[in-house]
């Protein structure tokens, strides 16, 4: 096990270098750079600016430069925000994180419950209704359902705010601040949950269905255990095992921001920063953030492998 962890760890470092290289080159060969989007500049001025920003150097040179700085923990200045990349991301990433974590908890709880229930009552009216509802929620385009909820709860009923994270001009601190943010979070969290609960419910349902057909469940029933014990003690454990992989994949998702939702609800999240950095070719932000997400993905995978081995005795790591 120890050896396995070490080996995987070394692999991770190699993968990260490879990723950074590929990402940097892919971004660099996108046509147009940060200066190009301002067509009012005279070519001389544009040339001056490019050399001030170092955009006129060969790609490999720029990459090594970036890498050298990044290894020292310096991810540079955002071209567009004129601010250190890390402090910029730090400002926004937590806003995205809090929405995502609440949505994640809600999604998993609801999906687990409905998935298991509809599996043990397969083809019942409950199963049918759940299937219908989760597919409906999943198929709504997110901007449509967001706008619909804004109209219902924000404009018609006026019980929830239309957008933002705080009331305009609010000076609240402490608990009242948290309550205020919480109120603004209701709609975004609800919508994110609605959109993602569907696939997960189906996943749990299928997992459960597979497990309850296995022999050991029949054995458990045969020895006279109560149905509740059979399902929740014996079947559930095995049914949710594959979900560990899924949960690990959620790790980058917690920090990546939900672009459409954040835009419609004016949520000051990192999704917006990310999208802007692509369209403005703000390389430092783009690189730092994409690398951050790649790290999380790779770490998430690693954790999944390790925990999997820990909880499933059938898997042995060497």
């Amino acid at each position, binding site marked *: 096990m120890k050896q396995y962890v070490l080996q995987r760890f070394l692999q991770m470092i190699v993968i990260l270098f490879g990723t950074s290289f590929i990402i940097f080159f892919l971004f660099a060969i996108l046509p*147009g750079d940060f200066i190009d989007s*301002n067509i009012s500049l005279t070519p001389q001025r544009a040339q001056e600016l490019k050399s001030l920003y170092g955009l006129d150097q060969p790609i490999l040179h720029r990459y090594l430069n970036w890498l050298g700085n990044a290894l020292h923990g310096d991810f540079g200045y955002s071209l567009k925000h004129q601010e250190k990349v890390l402090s910029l991301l730090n400002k926004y990433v937590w806003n995205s994180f809090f929405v995502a974590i609440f949505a994640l908890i809600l999604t998993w709880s609801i999906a687990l419950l409905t998935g298991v229930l509809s599996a043990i009552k397969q083809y019942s009216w409950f199963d049918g209704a759940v299937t219908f509802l989760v597919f409906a929620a999943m198929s709504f385009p997110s901007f449509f359902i967001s706008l619909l909820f804004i109209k219902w709860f924000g404009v018609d009923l006026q019980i929830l705010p239309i957008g933002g994270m705080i009331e*305009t001009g609010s000076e609240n601190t402490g608990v009242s601040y948290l309550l205020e943010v919480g109120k603004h979070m209701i709609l975004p969290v609800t919508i994110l949950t609605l959109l993602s609960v569907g696939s997960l419910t189906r996943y749990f349902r299928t997992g459960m269905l597979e497990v309850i057909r296995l022999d050991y469940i029949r054995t458990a029933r045969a020895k006279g255990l109560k149905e509740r014990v059979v399902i929740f003690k014996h079947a559930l454990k095995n049914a949710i095992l594959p979900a560990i992989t899924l949960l690990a994949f959620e790790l980058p998702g917690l920090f990546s921001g939900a672009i459409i939702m954040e835009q419609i609800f004016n949520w000051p999240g990192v999704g917006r920063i990310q999208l802007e950095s692509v369209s403005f070719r703000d390389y430092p932000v783009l690189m730092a953030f994409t690398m951050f997400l790649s790290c999380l993905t790779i770490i998430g995978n690693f954790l999944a492998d390790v925990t999997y081995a820990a909880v499933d005795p059938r898997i042995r790591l060497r």
Partner: protein
Amino acid sequence: MKKSFKSFISIIFLAMILSACALDSSSSKQSAVPEKKVNTPAKDRGVKVFKAANLSALPEKAKSRKDLFIAGISAPGGVFLPYFYENGWDGNATDPIFAPLVNLDKEGKPVGILADKWNISSDQLTYTFHLRNGVTFSDGSPVTADDVAFTLTLLHDPAYEGYQDISLAAIQGGKEYKEGKAKTIEGIKVKNKQTIEITTTEVNAKALLLLGGQVLSKAYYGKDYEYGKLDYLKDLYSKPLGAGPYKFIKYVPGQEIRYEANEHYYAGKPKTKNLIFKVIDTSTSLQLFETGELDYASFSADDDTVGQLQSLGFANVRVGPVNDFGLIYVNNSRPQFKDKKVRQALIYGLDRQKIVDVKFKSYGEVANIPVSKVSWAYNDKGINKYEFNAGKAKELLDQAGWKAGKDGIREKDGKPFVIHYLTRTAEDPIIPIAKENYEDIGIKFEPEIMDFNALVAKLNKKDYDFASVSTSQILDPSDPVEEFATGNPNNAAGYSNPKVDELIKKGLNTLDIEKRKEIYHELYKELNEDPPVILVHYRQSARAISGQIKGLIPDNYTGIGASLPNISIKK
């Protein structure tokens, strides 16, 4: 000049993507209406005002605000320093804090703000600005000629990497200073505390605004200044200090910017104590206005939006032209577009009225002059309207030697006529309409969708046939046309016409607006006859002002900026 910057081409379609908001950044202040509030329809240049019919419908939220005005802003970035921000919205956010020497009034003509008056020498090369008596920054320190000199010097620093290209003003000795050959800029002379004289080496009608921009305090921004080192300013981006009507209080990232009235403002403390620019998204700004979260919002005008705004009852709605236009670049440097008959045929053969109708649902107009209808230079006398006429287009193409080949596509020298069209959104109505129209006259039309930077990069490299864009806010009539001059480095159309070259030069070579009007009229007639591009549309905006707000008259050059000191709330 701040408004014209990164927002440069706000793409023809206001796509739902965020970047579009940012690119279109100037539009919040550019869109709208150039005149007095009501009762002057004759001067209105097409502005329609719908008065609030039912003030009792005011939402509680709006009613409860007695000393706070809230306007929307799209995506500020938090760099609150003129000349240094890289995001057009930050320009809007800094406007209340920093006052310029000279600004444009609602007609687009210069008006003194911190400068009481200015004189221009008879050779039109030397500008003397006289500051108002007793103007101060918001901390109470006086605004002096030294501050103006400092601001202009800073822009000449070799480390300056912002959007302002001060070299266009051609200040004497500016180049030497930038290259490190001189310690000071020769052409900038501080006469006394209130007078500064600036000598330029070229007559340029646009120099006045470049020289008379927003003033930075030397004591505040210049105390650590060393030649070639500007990084220290980064610490001050979030702590602005200026001489504008409002002073900065707080920026809540991604949420709002808070201001408070500046008691030292030269024209008196603004009537409304608090101001907030709230970050909004275009998809919900109507809902925010409807529920009273915003006192002011600007929308792209169409039947639905205008109808909805009117039905609210509590809003004063002003629908009027926007200070920009939409166009299709034509690559004149490619052989098939060299002949002016071909370019004329391509305009005749395109049903632009239909495009405008689809896009703006009765709130747009076909453009035939490369300046917006709000400009003082707009004059359509003697301008050919190029009304849709496929027969005429075919005739012109025949004359130009493009004969119908096999499968109906015209050919010349064995090459078929194919137009490759770049646009930014698949919803662009030009795609289906042009495809149908051009196929009808024997031209193959192939659209391609790409993102903004890629499109601009292709445009600059002249690697395109047709490219669809829209101009940014037009501050000076020269802005949209000067690139058509032969050899102009930004001549993305690859156009060349000696008469046009001369008129463009003449248009900048005098500061007399009456003379410039005539020159531009000549120029427009020539550009109409020998078109460099296909002009497509003029659009309109609907600006909604909550009924309890008085004294807010948005205009086409400063947006709500000029009205800020006068806004009051009916109690």
